[in-house]
């Protein structure tokens, strides 16, 4: 089979197959190489992680003690809003796109992504989108202050003038994500090496394929909802304005129709990463591969019929509450299958705990805690008490920090030798793990307690009885924050040098990516490998 018959789209020049990248800044601006673009996504995402993290530090510093110490409530609102937006759209999503760019072509034996030039575009839109978003903080009236969920009419009638720029920034992020998703789908469906059947694909590829479908299904919905806001603000429509015949509750339905699948967009690739790493360090094949694929697919399907569990308290009829409650609980079944399979993979395996494995095991344990608090929240009558308290904050940080972010750390530590050709400092990386692990739990575990006791979220001040737990959370937060600078140091040190990495630095690892030398050459699999 030749390149052509497996469907490679020729929108870039293949003639320079053997030489390395051009030099200088323009290499990065014009590159269509999936490895370059993957690296840029990773660095961009890390920069956003530090920026969103800095905002979290402002929040935790203000909440260190009761009363107003450091910032005004208006600015605090902008910090909580921007922290959420930047972490979701700037840190977590681009990090997984970066991993996808680097690893998917190498895992399926493809020479590059299917649409290299569009790949360049989808990356380069992002810095502009986020520059626009962050610039709103310096505009008159301040940046977005309505929470990352930007409920109307807070984000329409009562929003600062900068909201229009926020809307354009969201449009740009949406376009970038959709282009990235189309690229992933086209790559996976058309560029697999001969013999790489769908059910032979590594789980990371599978989870990304399903994630990409979620992205093309719901990012347009996000674009739609912000477009409706734009029209309400500027053109006198009344989608969300009750005075004009609209309904603010409609906003919440449309937003969460996007928003719930969005949380799986952030977690399914994490499932994929962990499903690569746990077998490698258990020295056993993944337990229940087929059930893993079906579990991911059913989670993705269910994600479309549970959105109103975010809206139990807005007034939906009893049948609605009951339907969305049970549908939500149902998601625990495929998720339980996955957790069971990861544990079963480790069971009686020859386990070693290198850093990727430490993060992966912590993922399984802590993500499960986040899953359980999610189950508690899914119980409609109980949710009336938990709604908008720190219990919700604890829940989604448990699924996103030791869920999505730990999986990203795990993936970086797993594939960094392949990317750089060097081994990183194992000792320091373990310090990074333990500091992150302890810091993260110190930050978010106490939030369960203050939440159950009634502390509301998104408020810069709190009642005295919450003081001790908040101080602990702040100390944990600072610890987690500072530790990420150590991660930056470890990665830079590894890029600059270190012991030479072998083609397969982890003896238990499997997959095509380990067949190419480390560092991976600029062009890999220009002739497709044979997959047995």
């Amino acid at each position, binding site marked *: 089979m030749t390149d*052509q018959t497996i*469907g*490679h*789209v020729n929108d870039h020049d293949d003639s320079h197959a053997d030489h390395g990248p051009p030099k200088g800044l323009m290499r990065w601006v014009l590159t269509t190489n999936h490895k370059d673009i993957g690296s840029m996504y990773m660095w961009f995402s890390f920069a956003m992680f530090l920026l969103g993290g800095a905002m979290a530090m402002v929040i935790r510093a203000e909440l260190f003690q009761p009363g107003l110490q450091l910032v005004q409530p208006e600015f605090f609102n902008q910090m909580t809003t921007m922290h959420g937006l930047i972490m979701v759209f700037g840190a977590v999503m681009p990090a997984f796109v970066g991993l996808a760019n680097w690893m998917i072509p190498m895992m399926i034996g493809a020479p590059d992504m*299917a*649409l290299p030039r569009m790949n360049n575009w989808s990356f380069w839109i992002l810095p502009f989108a986020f520059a626009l978003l962050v610039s709103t903080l310096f505009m008159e009236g301040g940046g977005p202050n309505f929470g990352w969920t930007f409920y109307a009419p807070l984000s329409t*009638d*009562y929003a600062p003038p900068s909201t229009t720029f926020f809307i354009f920034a969201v449009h740009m992020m949406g376009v970038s994500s*959709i282009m990235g*998703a*189309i690229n992933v*789908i*086209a790559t996976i*469906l*058309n*560029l697999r090496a001969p013999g790489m059947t769908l059910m032979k694909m590594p789980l990371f590829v599978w989870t990304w394929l399903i994630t990409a479908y979620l992205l*093309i*299904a*719901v*990012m*347009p*919905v996000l*674009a*739609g*909802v912000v477009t*409706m806001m734009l029209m309400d603000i*500027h*053109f*006198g*429509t*009344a*989608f969300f*304005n*009750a*005075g*004009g*015949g609209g*309904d603010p*509750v*409609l906003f919440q*339905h*449309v937003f969460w*129709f996007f928003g719930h699948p969005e949380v799986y967009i952030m977690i399914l690739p994490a499932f994929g990463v962990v499903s690569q790493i746990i077998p490698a360090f258990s020295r056993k094949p993944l337990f229940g591969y087929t059930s893993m694929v079906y579990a991911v697919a059913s989670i993705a399907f269910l994600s479309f019929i549970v959105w109103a569990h975010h809206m139990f308290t807005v*007034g*939906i*009829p009893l049948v609605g509450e009951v339907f969305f409650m049970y549908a939500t609980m149902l998601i625990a079944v495929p998720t339980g299958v996955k957790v069971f399979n990861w544990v079963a993979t480790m069971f009686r395996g020859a386990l070693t705990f290198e850093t990727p494995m430490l993060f992966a095991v912590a993922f399984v344990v802590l993500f499960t805690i986040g899953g359980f608090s999610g189950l508690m929240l899914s119980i409609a009558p109980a949710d009336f008490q938990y709604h908008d308290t720190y219990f919700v904050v604890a829940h989604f940080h448990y699924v996103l920090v030791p869920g999505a972010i730990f999986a990203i750390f795990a993936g970086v530590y797993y594939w960094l030798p392949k990317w750089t050709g060097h081994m990183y400092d194992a000792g320091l990386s373990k310090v990074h793990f333990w500091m992150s692990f302890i810091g993260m739990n110190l930050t978010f575990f106490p939030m369960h307690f203050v939440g159950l006791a009634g502390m509301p979220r998104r408020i810069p001040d709190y009642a005295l009885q919450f003081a001790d737990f908040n101080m602990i959370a702040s100390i944990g937060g600072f610890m987690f924050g500072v530790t990420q600078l150590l991660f930056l140091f470890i990665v830079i040190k590894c890029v600059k040098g270190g012991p030479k990495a072998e083609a397969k630095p982890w003896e238990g690892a499997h997959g095509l990516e380990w067949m190419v030398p480390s560092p991976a050459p600029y062009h890999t699999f220009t002739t497709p490998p044979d997959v047995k």
Partner: protein
Amino acid sequence: MQLNPAHKTIIKATATAVAMFAFVFWVMVPLYNVLCQVTGLNGKTDPNPYKTVPAAVDTSRTITVQFLATNNKGMNWDFKPSVHQVKVHPGEVGSLNFYVRNPSGKNMVGQAIPSVTPFEATDYLHKTECFCFTSQPLEGHEEKDMPLKIIVDQDLPKHINKLTLSYTLFDITEMNNKRTAAR
């Protein structure tokens, strides 16, 4: 032109994305409005006058209908019902007025938005005449008594004997200006 498989995938994926964007505007929004109409979700009443059908007044039941008038944030009109509740038999017409006054010196437009609780009673509270069917322009310092006529349906579920009809008054002056400007 020969389409290779990758091109087909790309076209399909792009079409899906475009279709989902259209889905928001042309499916989700109308569907939500229809659902609200049919189920009385959110207590939204029929935005058009009720056409009376001849039916006997059910004197065996007496229903209390309570009225609330609320100003939305930023609306400065005086707004209140002439009576706070009426007692009617199903099928019988109840009428009252809502008083409004524009205390500002400016011409303004108001719009009252009705909502009924409990939700399940929404479809059984009919309005043959209501100031909420149209927007209400008031000149500066103008005042007005706005009529409301209601009929409680004979089929109102048996366990309900008290309804609340609440109006929230919105200032839509600016929205009207934007609409005219957009045209």
